[in-house]
């Protein structure tokens, strides 16, 4: 338990930590260029994956409606999913917190006397810090997705939800492999690098006792777990070891099998510009009698970890529509600049700003909702049309609400409230809703414009200070009207 608390605090994006991370990563030119290059590539790929704007728009609307329908009946669908999975022989476990999820998984592994795990890519297992938890219990965890493998070797965390090692360029990966893989033949050729990494992983697949994977869609009506991947490692993890444990968030449930094709199509095209991923796995049972392969046991751990808090509010509920494609971060000008690690949360970028406050509370994430210009690039590309800027605005509102105001919608309500700032806005509102007070303040601003300081904090570190005009537009219009009246009178 102590360990988990530390893990949480390591991830938490406290105001101070966030500022320090941002300063560190903005100053790292190699990192900046890695992100800019990768995001440009991903944006181009996505753009070329849709034949027309109309097609994209129709698909986005369709997928939004699918996810909204599924969320509208979420409790019912989860029950249906559990029933159908159990009927298929897949055992379902419910975890309210990350600790519960980790304990369930550790127990399942202990029951089988397992000591080595091979993992497919799963952001939810990053959310629970599962690797650290298991390794402390002497269970070896090996990440088998190439990107995850790279960050694991580098003792880092994913910087992107789809491409975990996107912050590293091929030279950095070559050096990492040279330092860590025995017999590595130095090369910066991407195919050679991947081939050598794969050889290491291939051996591990055959030795592991347990395979752990995520889930992209859990189909309620059929009890099917769908897994989208490109490297085949997901299939290996879920078929070779005797025990397969899948872990996912409760929002991944969909109602019908027919909901999957449109979502899948939009997921892969939004994420990497692929028409479809190289592998698409549909897991509907453990090995059946007479079958020659597949795991003996399959388990699904369904994690809440703050999701039901979002679910309880009509507006924030839309957060759960997310299918984790990463398009919002690929298009985010802030993410492109600071990269994924600066956020200090498992999920970076716009999606991270929306989900992390539910997982960690607003105290630990005060700076996330404000770290956006609300430019709307994320909302424009979101495949399920989550109004991301609007949700960030809502989180800002929750963050500056008085702590005591009821009903409390979110953990850590009011964490971003400062009494000075609240007072400033109160005065601001008084001035701007009263024409007399506004006129007076504008008169003061223009009359004493010479008092305008030349230094304005962070603003003037890269810009000159703006200067108020000598006369306001209000005054200019009035003067113009008076002049017109005068000349009319003179003429008259």
């Amino acid at each position, binding site marked *: 338990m102590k360990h988990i608390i530390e893990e949480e605090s390591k991830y938490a994006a406290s105001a101070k930590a966030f500022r320090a991370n941002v300063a560190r990563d903005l100053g790292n030119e190699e990192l900046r260029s890695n992100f800019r290059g990768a995001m440009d590539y991903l944006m181009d790929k996505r753009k070329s994956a849709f034949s027309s704007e109309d097609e994209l*728009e129709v698909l986005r609307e369709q997928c939004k409606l699918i996810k909204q329908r599924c969320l509208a009946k979420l409790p019912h669908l989860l029950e249906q999913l559990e029933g159908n999975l159990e009927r298929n022989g897949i055992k379902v476990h419910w975890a309210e917190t990350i600790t519960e999820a980790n304990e369930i998984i550790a127990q399942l592994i202990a029951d089988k006397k397992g000591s080595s795990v091979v993992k497919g890519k799963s952001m939810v297992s990053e959310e629970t810090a599962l690797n650290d938890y298991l390794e402390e219990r002497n269970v070896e965890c090996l990440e088998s997705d190439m990107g995850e493998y790279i960050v694991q070797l580098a003792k880092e965390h994913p910087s992107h939800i789809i491409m975990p090692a996107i912050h590293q360029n091929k030279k950095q990966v070559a050096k990492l492999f040279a330092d860590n893989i025995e017999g590595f033949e130095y090369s910066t050729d991407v195919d050679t690098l991947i081939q050598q990494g794969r050889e290491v992983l291939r051996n591990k697949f055959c030795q592991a006792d347990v395979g752990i994977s995520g889930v992209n869609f859990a189909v309620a009506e059929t009890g099917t777990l769908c897994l989208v991947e490109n490297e085949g490692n997901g299939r290996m993890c879920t078929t070779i070891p005797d025990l397969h444990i899948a872990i996912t968030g409760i929002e991944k449930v969909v109602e019908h099998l027919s909901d999957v094709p449109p979502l899948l199509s939009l997921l892969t095209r939004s994420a990497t510009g692929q028409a479809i991923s190289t592998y698409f796995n549909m897991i509907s049972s453990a090995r059946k009698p007479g079958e020659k392969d597949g795991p003996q046991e399959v388990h699904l751990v369904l994690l809440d970890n703050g999701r039901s808090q979002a679910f309880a509010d009509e507006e924030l509920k839309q957060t759960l529509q997310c299918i984790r494609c990463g398009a919002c971060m690929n298009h985010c000008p802030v993410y492109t*600049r600071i990269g994924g690690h600066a956020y200090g949360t498992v999920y970076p970028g716009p999606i991270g700003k929306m989900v992390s406050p539910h997982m960690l509370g607003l105290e630990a994430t005060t700076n996330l909702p404000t*770290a956006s210009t609300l430019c709307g690039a994320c909302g424009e590309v979101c495949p399920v049309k989550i109004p991301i800027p609007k949700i960030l605005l809502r989180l800002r509102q*929750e963050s500056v609400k008085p702590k005591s105001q009821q009903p409390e919608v979110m953990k850590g309500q009011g964490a971003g409230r400062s009494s000075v700032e609240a007072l400033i806005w109160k005065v601001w509102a008084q001035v701007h809703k009263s*024409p007399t007070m506004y006129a007076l303040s504008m008169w003061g601003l223009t009359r004493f414009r010479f008092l305008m300081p030349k230094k304005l904090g962070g603003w003037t570190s890269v810009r*000159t200070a703006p200067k108020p*005009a000598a006369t306001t537009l*209000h*005054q200019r*219009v009035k003067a113009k009207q008076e002049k017109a009246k005068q000349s009319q009178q003179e003429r008259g």
Partner: protein
Amino acid sequence: MQQLNTQHLRDYPKKPKQVYLFGTCIVDSFFPDTGMDAIELLEREGIEVIYPQGQSCCGQPAYNSGYKDEAKAVALSQVKQFPLDIPVVVVSGSCGGMMRHHYLDLLGDDPEINNFCQRVFELTEFLVHVLHLKPVDQGPKEKVALHTSCAARREMGVHLTGNKLISQLANVELVIHDYESECCGFGGTFAVKHADISAAMVADKSKHLVATDAVRYVSADHGCMMNINGALDYQKQSLRGEHIASYLLNRIKGNSSKGSL
């Protein structure tokens, strides 16, 4: 694939006799020339412009900072300043987006609010879709770039109307800068709260604009321009931005423009 936005497609009224002008607080206190130029531009088309002296700010600064009640009080006071059933022309895409779209959320979907929101037009949108303005260019040959604020682009479609207006100027070559649709890093209080990130963004935006070799860049938002021009001035670049209202008027009148700072 062209970026399309369906949010701004709407029914446009016939050319009215009168309009209101919403000047915005930034224009009022820092760039009144822009407001005067917008008025002249509209008056040249035979429209009477009413500028209510009771107007102040659209409420966006408080709204974007999470202070909803404060934003609401100011927004309501503004709606009251524009009672006649005539268009409200706004000289900023971002304030226009606030008044056209966000007021409904903020103030509730009541008939008076709804009627007000329906009457809000961003200036270039009004010039193109209501006045069908065909500016006759009398200015010298030159290259300009266009920076569209994000709210203007995504909520009001200004990248299309601004582009159309500039493209009609016979002697002006419109040059597209790299990462044209990317945010300049202003974002209101963002530029103060996250000054480092904002600085990195405006450094890139100004670099891309300077790289076009345009003599100036044009924008429909003084928020962005305060940010970008401030950075250009700090860097001692000669390039400056000018509000599209002033730029158009100067082109029509054959004046050479100077850029605003």
